[in-house]
C-alpha cells in the first residue's frame, strides 16, 4: 500500500527501504521522484546512476533505468552513458564521501566539461554505511569514529566546489526545505549542462549519536533554523553569521554543453572527409 507517486516510480517489492529511522535519504529520493513526475519525463528515458554509500542505494528502489556503480565513479559511468546515449536524462545520486573524496576528481572534471548530467548530493557529513568515519564535509571539531577527539580538517563546500569547477547550475538546500529541493532539482534537470544540487541531510544513527545532535526531529530543526538563504546571509552582521550555513542558488549560467560539442566535432570531421 502506497501513494500513487511511490507506486508509479518505485520498485515497490523492494520497499520498505533499509535506511535507518529518521534518515533523510528517503526524503531526498522522494523529492527527486516528485521533480521527475512534475517535469513529466518519460521513465524509460531517465537513467539514475549511483556510486557506493547509503545514498547510493537509492537507485535500487527506483523504477527507472538504474546503474549502481563503484565507489566514487558514478559520474565517470554517467559520462560514458550520456555520451553514448545523449537522449537519456542522466541523473547521478551520490553522497558527500562518494562525490568529494573518492570521486572528487570525477566531480570537478564532469563540472569542468559542463556535461548534461544532474547530480544530487545527499550530504550527511559522515560515512554512514561504513560506521561513521569523518568525511570531507564533516565540520571542524565534529566527532566521528575516526575523529574521536574532534575533526581537525576544514570541510569542503561541495556546491561552491562544483560551481568553481565549471558547473552551470549549482544549488544547495536541505532535507527540511523539501519544496525548495524539488524546485532546484527540476531546474537542475532542465539546465542543459552540468548541474549539482546539494541536499544537506541528516544521519541520526552515526553523525547524530556521535555528536549528541539529538533525535531525527532535533536534527531536522537544526536544518530549519540554521540554513539561511545566501542573499539574506550576505546582509547579516558578522557576529550573526557564526554557526549558520548557507543555502540557495549559487550559480546559474549558460555555456556550451559537452555532448553537443562532441557531436558537432564529429559532424565537422565528417564534412572534412568529403
Amino acid at each position: 500500500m502506497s501513494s500513487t507517486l511511490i507506486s508509479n516510480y518505485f520498485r515497490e517489492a523492494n520497499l520498505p527501504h533499509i535506511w535507518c529511522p529518521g534518515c533523510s535519504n528517503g526524503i531526498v529520493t522522494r523529492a527527486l521522484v516528485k521533480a521527475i513526475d512534475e517535469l513529466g519525463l518519460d521513465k524509460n528515458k531517465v537513467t539514475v546512476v549511483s556510486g557506493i554509500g547509503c545514498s547510493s542505494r537509492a537507485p535500487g528502489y527506483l523504477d527507472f533505468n538504474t546503474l549502481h556503480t563503484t565507489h566514487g565513479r558514478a559520474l565517470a559511468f554517467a559520462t560514458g552513458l550520456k555520451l553514448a546515449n545523449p537522449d537519456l536524462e542522466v541523473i547521478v545520486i551520490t553522497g558527500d564521501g562518494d562525490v568529494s573524496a573518492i570521486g572528487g576528481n570525477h566531480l570537478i572534471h564532469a563540472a569542468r566539461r559542463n556535461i548534461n548530467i544532474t547530480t544530487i548530493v545527499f550530504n550527511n557529513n559522515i560515512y554512514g554505511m561504513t560506521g561513521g568515519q569523518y568525511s570531507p564535509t564533516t565540520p571542524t571539531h565534529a566527532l566521528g569514529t575516526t575523529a574521536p577527539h574532534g575533526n581537525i580538517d576544514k570541510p569542503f563546500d561541495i556546491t561552491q566546489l562544483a560551481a568553481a569547477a565549471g558547473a552551470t547550475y549549482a544549488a544547495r538546500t536541505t532535507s527540511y526545505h523539501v519544496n525548495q529541493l524539488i524546485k532546484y532539482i527540476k531546474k537542475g534537470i532542465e539546465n542543459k549542462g552540468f548541474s549539482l544540487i546539494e541536499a544537506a541531510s541528516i544521519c541520526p544513527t552515526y553523525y547524530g549519536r556521535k555528536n549528541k545532535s539529538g533525535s531525527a526531529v532535533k536534527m531536522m530543526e537544526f536544518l530549519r533554523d540554521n540554513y539561511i538563504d545566501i542573499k539574506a546571509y550576505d546582509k547579516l552582521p558578522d557576529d550573526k553569521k557564526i554557526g549558520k550555513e548557507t543555502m540557495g542558488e549559487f550559480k546559474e549560467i549558460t555555456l556550451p554543453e559537452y555532448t553537443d560539442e562532441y557531436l558537432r566535432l564529429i559532424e565537422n570531421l565528417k564534412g572534412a572527409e568529403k
Partner: protein
Amino acid sequence: MTAKDRKVIINKDWCKGCGICVAFCPKNVLALDHHDKIEVANRDACILCGQCELRCPDFAIWLGGEADE
C-alpha cells in the same frame, strides 16, 4: 478525485517511528501509538497541507483517495 475527497493515509508497516511527521505537522494531527508507529489522532484538524508526505523518509504517510487504500 477532488481535493476535498483526499485524506491522510498511513501504511504502518513502513513506518519506522522517527516522529518527523508528528513534529512538523502544523495542526498537531498526528501522534505515535504505543508501538511507536504513526497514527491520525485528530483527523478533523487536518488541512491537507501534505507536509507529512513531503518529509516522511519512509513513504509511510500520504494524501490520497479511496483508490490508494
